[in-house]
Every structure is written in C-alpha cells, then in structure tokens.
C-alpha cells in the first residue's frame, strides 16, 4: 500500500521584475511534473545533481513551498488542497531531516527546547514531565547522552547535531520522514553512523523514508526504490538492485559511471561515460527530452522535439526515454562519446 502518492506535481517559481509593481517575466521550472509513490515501510531514494529539483520536491510535499499544480496524496488526503491550519497539523505525521545539522537548529534554543517545540505545537504530552520523559527516551534512541538536554547546538559535533535533528523529527512519531541530504555535510566516518541509525530507527519504529541525496552510493545503500531526477522530472525509477544492475536511462548510466568507487580494481576496469557540457538552466529547459543536450545516445528524431513520458518497461523499470529498449539491446550506440577529453589533444 502506498503511503505517499505524487501525481504530476509541479513547482514553478515566478521570476519577477519591475520597479514599483512586480511583473512576472518567466518561471523557474524547479519541479515539472513528478509522479511517484512511496510504499509504507519502504525507503524511496531520490537522487540527482544540484539544480534537479529534488530538494524543492521534498519541501513541496510538506508544503514548505507552494505547489503550482498536481496532487500530493498522503494516506488518502490530498495535502496540496488542505487549508493552512490543517496542513500544519498534518505535519506531525510528515517530518523532515535537514542537510545542514547546525544551520537547521536554532542557535538560541537548548536541546530540550528544540525537542519540546514540536510536541507543544501538536499538543503531544499532557504536561512538561511527560514531554521530558519522551525527550529522554528519544535521546537515548538516537544515541545522545541524557545530559545533552540543557546544552546548546554549538556545543556538539556534526554527527551529534544530525542526531539532534533526527530526534526532533522522530519525537513526534511521524509516519513519513523526508531526509534531505541527511549525511552529505558529515565526515565520511560519521556518515556511516548516521546511515546505520536511520536504518535501525526505520526498523524499530516502522518508518517510511523519502531520502533525497546527490550521492548515488548513499541512496543505493539505504533505498528500496530509487528515482533519478534530471532538470525537474524523473527520468528513471526502479528497485535499487535492478537500477544498479541495469540502468536504462542514458543519464542514469552516465551518473553511475561517474560515481567513484573506493576500489582501484573497479576504478581501473570501468568505462566512463563522460557527459559534455553543463546542466541547462531550469528557467529555460530545452524542448523535447530535457537531457538531449548532453545525451551521448541522442538521436536525430524525437529527442529534441518530443518530451518522453515516464513509461514502464517489461522488466519493472520506469524510464523516460524514447529509445530505452534500443539502447539496452545495442541497436543504438554512443553517438557523442567522450567529447570532452577529445578537446584536450590540442
């Protein structure tokens, strides 16, 4: 059963200009038609590079940014249509863990006040004593010492701060936790601690995760299903192992071949698919397939004119590419391979 269903969600930010009265002169198509579903108890990983709209999508689900179009159905309720106050109350069930552990904690609040705030907002816990009991319990669960209560965020290390952020979300006993780059600001040796903690808590508390990250290795490690985003929309979605074994979308392939693996044998053996150029601006996305300007498999027909829809392939992949089957069986080969290094010879 799916706990969260997104149906053609769009978030367009107006670009405004004007001396006295603001005129809308264009839009940034941050999220441009994303449909996906997250099943209860699962982890859905959303991966993509900066500017692909993954963070905006995560915030749109919680309605921290305005949804331009589409439905966000959470446990049967369309959040996009809820009045503000109802949405606020719904946030008890949908929580968020942020990327920057220090920046996402109010520097003037001590840990007890940070953790009690959500409970106060949702009327959880009859009195201060009961709240404190819950806070002590959650602190122990995320592996923080009980004497942390009266201390302030700046007195903790990065990993501990992220544990505080996790405790703040979990003390409300939510159903869904959106983790926006939960480990990317942490040192390598600390990342594993936090990833393990997230997995452990999922198991013991029956949580559903939407993990948003740029690091494919992290996403693959923690997710059951992975969605790959490029320039505001999903280009591929598949179960984690399947996606790794057989990436179908050209962008997924390029992304996967670019992720460094800490193993010289693997690094020496692998073939890289180097993409040329940079991400186009989300304010002026290219027509047709959004990836066609950088795609090494680009074809003369369809790619530049027709926007591919996310369609289901026979093997359980959902992919937004006109030529996915032909690329998979080798009928279409690389067309613009390794253009970047070719320029070096001069």
């Amino acid at each position, binding site marked *: 059963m799916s706990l969260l269903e997104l149906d053609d969600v769009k978030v367009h930010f107006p670009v405004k200009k004007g001396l006295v009265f603001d005129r809308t002169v264009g839009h940034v198509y941050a999220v441009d038609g994303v449909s996906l579903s997250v099943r209860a108890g699962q982890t859905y990983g959303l991966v993509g590079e900066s500017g692909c709209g993954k963070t905006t999508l995560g915030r749109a689900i919680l309605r921290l940014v305005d949804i331009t179009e589409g439905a966000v159905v959470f446990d049967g309720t369309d959040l996009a249509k809820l009045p503000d106050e109802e949405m606020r109350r719904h946030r008890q069930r949908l929580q968020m863990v942020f990327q920057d552990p220090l920046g996402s904690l109010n520097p003037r609040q001590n840990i007890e006040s940070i953790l009690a705030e959500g409970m106060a907002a949702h009327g959880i816990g009859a009195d201060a004593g009961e709240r404190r009991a819950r806070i002590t319990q959650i602190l122990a669960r995320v592996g923080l010492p009980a004497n942390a209560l009266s201390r302030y965020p700046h007195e903790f290390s990065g990993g501990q701060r992220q544990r505080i952020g996790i405790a703040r979300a979990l003390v409300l006993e939510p159903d869904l936790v959106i983790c926006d780059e939960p480990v990317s600001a942490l040192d390598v040796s600390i990342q*594993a601690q936090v990833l*393990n903690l997230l997995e452990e808590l999922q198991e013991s508390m029956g949580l559903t995760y939407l993990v948003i990250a740029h690091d494919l*290795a992290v996403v693959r490690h923690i997710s059951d299903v992975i969605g790959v985003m490029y320039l505001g929309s999903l280009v591929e979605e598949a179960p*984690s192992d399947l996606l790794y074994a057989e990436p179908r979308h050209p962008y997924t392939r390029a992304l996967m*071949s*670019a992720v460094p693996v*800490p*193993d010289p044998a693997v690094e*020496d053996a692998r073939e890289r698919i180097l993409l040329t150029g940079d991400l186009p601006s989300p304010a002026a996305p290219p027509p047709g397939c959004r990836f066609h300007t950088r795609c090494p498999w680009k074809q003369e027909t369809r790619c530049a004119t027709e926007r591919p829809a996310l369609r289901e392939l026979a093997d359980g992949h959902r992919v937004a590419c006109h030529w996915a089957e032909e690329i998979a069986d080798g009928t279409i080969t690389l067309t613009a391979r390794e253009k970047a290094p070719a320029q070096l010879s001069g």
Partner: protein
Amino acid sequence: MPLLSVDELTITFAGRGQRDARAVDGVSFDVDQGQVVGLVGESGCGKSVTSLALMGLLPGRGVRLGGRAEFDGTDLLTLPAARMRDLRGTQLAMIFQDPLSSLNPVVPIGVQVTEILARHRGMRGEAARKEAAHLLDRVGIPDPTRRLKEYPHQLSGGMRQRALIAMAVACAPRLLIADEPTTALDVTIQAQILELLKELVDQEGTALLMITHDLGVVAGLCEQVNVLYAGKVVESAGRRALFDAPTHPYAHGLLGSIPRLDAPRGEALRPIRGSINDRIDWADGCAFAPRCDRYTMECLTGTPALTEPHTPGHQARCVNPVLPEGATSPQRTEATG
C-alpha cells in the same frame, strides 16, 4: 631524488590565551616527477594546512612551521616571500575547492589568465590573448575566445574549475597541488575534471599532490596514498596495496564505513565510533585510540612509530595493526623516512 620531499613537517597555531594547537604533527612524504600522490583524511586532519604551508600561503603571524619541505633542493618553508612568489605559478601551482572565490569576480577570465602569462612568461598583447585562448581550449572550455571576455559568475562551477586549472597550468608547473578540487562539483562534472587532471599528468609529466577526503577519488587517481589522522600520517602505501589491505585501524574503518555503489543492497556499514573530537595527544599515545576497537594498553604509551607490519613499502603507524589474511607474523621493521 624526489621532486618534493616533505620531512617531519609540523604546523602550530598559536592559541589566543589558550594553549597552542598543533594542526600538523610531523608529516613526511615524497612526490616524484610525474607522480600522483594523495593526502587523504577527514576535516581537521591537517591536509589542507599542509598544502597551504607548501605554497607559502599561511599567514606569517601566529603560525610556527617546523621540519623541511624540499622542492628540487630548496626548502619551501624557509624561502623568502619574494622567491616564493616567483616559484608559485612557474614551478608550483595550486587549485582550490571553491572555484568561485578563487577567481576575482570583477575581472574577466581572459584578463586573469593573461595577467599570469605577463607576469611569469613575459607575454603581452595579442600573443598573450592567443595563448590564453589556447589554454582554455586545452582544459576543455568550448568557445574559448568568447569565454575570455566573460566574468567568473557567467561560468558554471565546472567551467570555473577548468578556468582555474588553465591558470594553474599556464606556466607548465612541475608540481600541481589540488585541494579538494571536485568537492564542490556535481558527480558528472567531477568525472570530467578528474579526467582532465589525469590527462595533464600523463601528457605533461606534471606531478600532482591530490588532497581529498574522498577515497573513491583516490582509488581512481593516486599512485601513492598517505592517510592522515589528527595531523600525522597513519598509513602510507601504494594505491592497490592500501585498498587491498588497509592496515591502520582508521584506514580500515574508513573503508568499511563508506557505502559502495557496487555493494549489494543491505550490506551493513561498519562505522567508526565517536568523532574527531574524541582524541588524545599524540605524545600520550595513538590519537585514534579512543575510537579504535583494537587499542591496547600499549597504544597509550607514547606515539606509535611508523612501521611496515606486513609488506615492504606499506607503512602503518599502529602497534596492533590489521593484518591481511595469510600475512606472516608482524615483522616490526622500523620504517625509514
């Protein structure tokens, strides 16, 4: 003779009212002509400070340097500022993590490149402009003559890093120091930049000192790897040797705690406990001991020496190292250098 030979480098920051902080505590390593050497470690291990010291970019006040860093026979640490400036750009060059703040925002890229050509190669006017365009082209910036007129903010992150690399290699330096050159970039752009750096090393014979926290980057690029922890080299080995048999518990733990793209889903990570703040003074024992699963009483009696516990050339600073399966009993040969 190695191109760069760092010997027992120490860097101490004078604490204001508090006790001094030793950021680098006796680091030694060599870089040969045309070699790629990695300095790996997490934040606070002293890797970036080391690179700044080598480039003579640390502030003079409040910083004490010790040891030697011989570049082609001259000690970089005691070189007068004027001679250091000449050396930078001609023989030594550096690229930084954040390409935007390393470029002057109000001066076009072209001017910034030609400035270097004028200062170090005496090129002027049309010749300098032509060479600048050629350099941009060489680092893979399309349409270089147009790009020369643009300002840094008009370029994407990847293009900026390419422009910085162009400036760094403008005078064909013999040693290039790269401090986390791809950390701020997206992974597909990172792949492009790493490929470019490899090309430079292969074609020009430039030596590259790569400073990074990313073991994946190290695995694909570096021939010799030095792992730093709390200001000391704790392990030093060839690339294959290090990844095949990480010997210091820290290096071993680090590799075990990284999620690997090619690992099956659900393979557990083995994190290192605690954080960099849980450390003891090297003078008292192994700084890593509080986070280590293998520490013994012996770890708490003074600095452990750099030894070769199982294979010649594979050094580790540990009294109770992780030995590869089938390795003979530890032959504690005192390492030289």
